[in-house]
């Protein structure tokens, strides 16, 4: 049995995409593969919402996209993080950490030190 998966929390998809792209530039399909790996493990990502999210992030100028030959040799639209995107990722990581800390505190786990 695969472990029980829960749907991805609202707004986290953008953060995941930024995180994936912070490692290296990637095209849509490879981002989808990476998402699938994550989702197989923990959360469920609907692939259909990937492309709107990518376009949204591009519109916000957090991502930059250009057509480049991929590993198969065919041209693919490759996304990479912009400076603003990197900043945004840091902001989101930080706020996420604070939220997680706050939740942990509420549930009384380990926050007592």
């Amino acid at each position, binding site marked *: 049995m695969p472990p029980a998966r829960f749907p991805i929390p609202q707004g986290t998809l953008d953060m995941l995409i930024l995180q994936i792209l912070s490692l290296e530039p990637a095209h*849509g399909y490879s981002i989808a593969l990476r998402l699938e790996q994550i989702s197989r493990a923990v959360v469920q990502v609907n*692939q*259909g*919402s990937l*492309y*709107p999210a990518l*376009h949204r992030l591009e519109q916000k100028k957090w991502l930059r996209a250009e057509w480049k030959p991929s590993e198969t040799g*065919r041209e693919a639209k490759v996304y990479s993080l912009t400076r603003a995107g990197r900043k945004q990722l840091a902001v989101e990581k930080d706020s996420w950490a604070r939220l997680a800390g706050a939740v942990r505190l509420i549930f009384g786990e380990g926050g007592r030190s």
Partner: protein
Amino acid sequence: MRLLNWLRRRRLEEDLDRELRYHLDRRVADLTAAGLSEADAWRRARIELGGAAQVREEVRDVWLTRWLRDFVYDLRFSVRSLRRAPSFTGTTVLSLAIGIGATTAIYSLVDQVVLHALPVREPERLVLIDWKGEPVANAFGSWNLMSYPLCRDLQRHDEAFDGVLCRAATTVTLSIGSAPEPTAAEIVSGTYFPVLGVGAALGRVLGPSDDTTADASPVAVLAYNFWRTRLASDPTVVGRKILVNHYPITVVGVAAPTFQGVDVGEVPALWLPAAMSSRAIPGFDGLMDRRMRWMQVLGRLKPDVTIERAQAALQPWFKAMLVEDMGLPGFPTITPERRQRFLASRLELTPAPQGHSPLRRRLAQPLWVLFAATAVLLGLACLNVAGLFLARGSARERELTTRVALGASRGRIGRQLIADSVLIGLAGGACGVVLAPVTLRMLIALLPQETAATALHPNVDARMLLFALAVSVAAGLLSGCAPAVHAGRRSLITSLRERAGSGGGARLRKMIVAAQIALSLVLVIGAVLFARTLTGLLAKGPGFDTTSLVSFGVQPRGSGYSRVDGTRLVFRIYDQVRAAPTTAAAAVARYALLTGGSWNNHMTILADRRITTDREANLNAVTPGFFATLDARIVAGRDFDQRDTRAGAGPHTAIINAAFAARYLAGRNPLGVRLGVGSGPDVQPDVEVVGVVTTFSYRGLREESEQAFFPMLEGGEETDAGGNFYVKIRGTPEQAAQTIRTIVHEADPLLPLTYLRTVDEQIGRSLNTERILATLSGGFGALALLLSLVGLTGVMSFLVTQRTRELGIRIALGARRRSAIWLVLRDAVVMIAAGAAIGLPCVAVLGRLVESQLFGVKPTDPITIAATTLLLGAVALAAALVPAYGAATVNPTDALRAE
């Protein structure tokens, strides 16, 4: 900008296609590699992606926010549906085009004459400095007059000002290598260009060094447009000598292209330093006279000084100056109460970013009135379009109901209707912008002054376009909101339950028609008031006979004549004109009639005791036979004759008009009474009244003032106004004009005629403002009436169709045709009555605003209002009668079968 995405949407779509295709291809390749059949792999890949069409839609939402995309789709849908209904589209676009075109044209005039700031550095810091109180000074010119020394004094007040300038408009006789011509010029202080911050396009502008010593700097700067049109942009003009009033002046430069002086209605061809004023105004020697007011003074406030602070800061110095002035030699002897008023005078500063303009002073109010009229007209057009939309809405009921049934939100449908009307608004606006310059050109041609034609432009500019755009969108929204609200309110159930053609916002449409009638009532009453003003003034006339009366003027002083020689020349021409075969009678006056100006002063009257007039009388000097030429009757005493015109110590006889006699000499024999010009205690009343003439108009048709006439002395030298000839002619004005030109040319080939026209023409000119108001408001009123009649007829026929069945039944049951007509007509009567009930109070309120523009009729004139209301009601009823009659001739069987 997301809107940009709309423009490049094709590329975006292609990109997205390629991207999704890449995704699917890779996925299928991976899946088939994992052992799936190709068909299964495709299916799986598609399901994973969640439907390509949906992904695309979602991505498109990212590109263009939802509402924007919807709106763009709405607009496209609107274009398609409007194209399918060309007559509807045509009518609505035309309605709005008329409204927007008229509003934009008038706005452009308002903008140019009233609102537009001067094209100078920081115009918002300019203020007009004016004397409030009793200046105890002689004056000539238009308004806000000050003396040149006072301007010099103010220039020292750098605690309030960054600079002070003064200027006066004048007309000089200018020749640049060609025949001399009367030309508009501006006499300016040396500070004028530096304070305004206006530079030169060529050479240099005038500076303070050109304005230090009287008569020492014969230089001039030309206006750019004059240089371009009259001198073909000749680059060698700097350094050239020109003749101003026959006096050589050197051109030192051409001013910046956009700059046209500080008076929007009087564009100068050249600027002359004030130091040269004795040449610019022949014989003028009042430059350094503190008691001679003739220039407007403008100051540039320091950046951190408010107008109130500047004004307060100036008063102590000003008060001290008043006291000092009184002690100066040459200060006239005045009565104690006048001295008190003089000492109570103060300086007043008013913001003057638009400069100073008599044209604006005269036209601002009529223009705002017209602007208000066009706004009402536009409102009416909007109502018309709203009505048409409602009518179309009921025809489109089925489409809209179906869309609601299919799940369209009410807001969405409302938005669709707004998109329709905004589109119509923009189309109307586009047509309006095309119409506006044409209208504007006609308007400018109607304007009172010849100069206005050079000062105002009929071109489409950015401000006008912006205004038209704003008005179009507003008009679109306004005309769309009623139908949209109506559509939003309709419930699906009732719509489906109702039969075709019923409902359809009958109440809303009736309200719209009532409002239309109210608005057109306001406009039509306004138009009638202005028409009555114009016809009243025309019917009244100037009080003398203008048939075959031609008038022309010469200014010998502008061509280098001395005073005595100038007067001699005038008399020489006068003798020639009198002897000409085309002349029945002729006379000369110093000052022209009906031009708005006059020679005026207080008078001292010595009858059995000495009194001074309580207001200024209008004065003139005329030759014997002047009154006979005008056909103005001498009611007592005699006309001037040879005894009076002999050159001597000055005039010793005078003729007063009936108004003068009635105001100051009531019940006394005016003959033999003695007069003096001026009101000071030192005035010698030594001029004997020898006659009384009937009252006629001098400055303008509206005025019937107290006047006094003196004989024009042969070889006299009392003024420099030149000669204004009045000639009763035989034959056609053209023949007479030819004779007159020949006579003047023979007297001096270089002497230009300042004007030559019939007196009727002159009257026409003097009534230009009234004519514009009457013509335009009449036109607007007619358009308004037309629009509301169209609206009324539309609603009436709609109501009739709606009640066809009911009427059929009634007639089948034996109702009379007449009662059927009445049944329908009742609605029309209610609408018209409601319109009048709304409109009449508006007339009462708005009437006060136009009161000063009227003559011989009150804004609440009961006859005008009652007649107009009745007439408008009758016309509206007649328009309603056509569809109502149709209702009565309904064939009952047809009406019932139509179900």
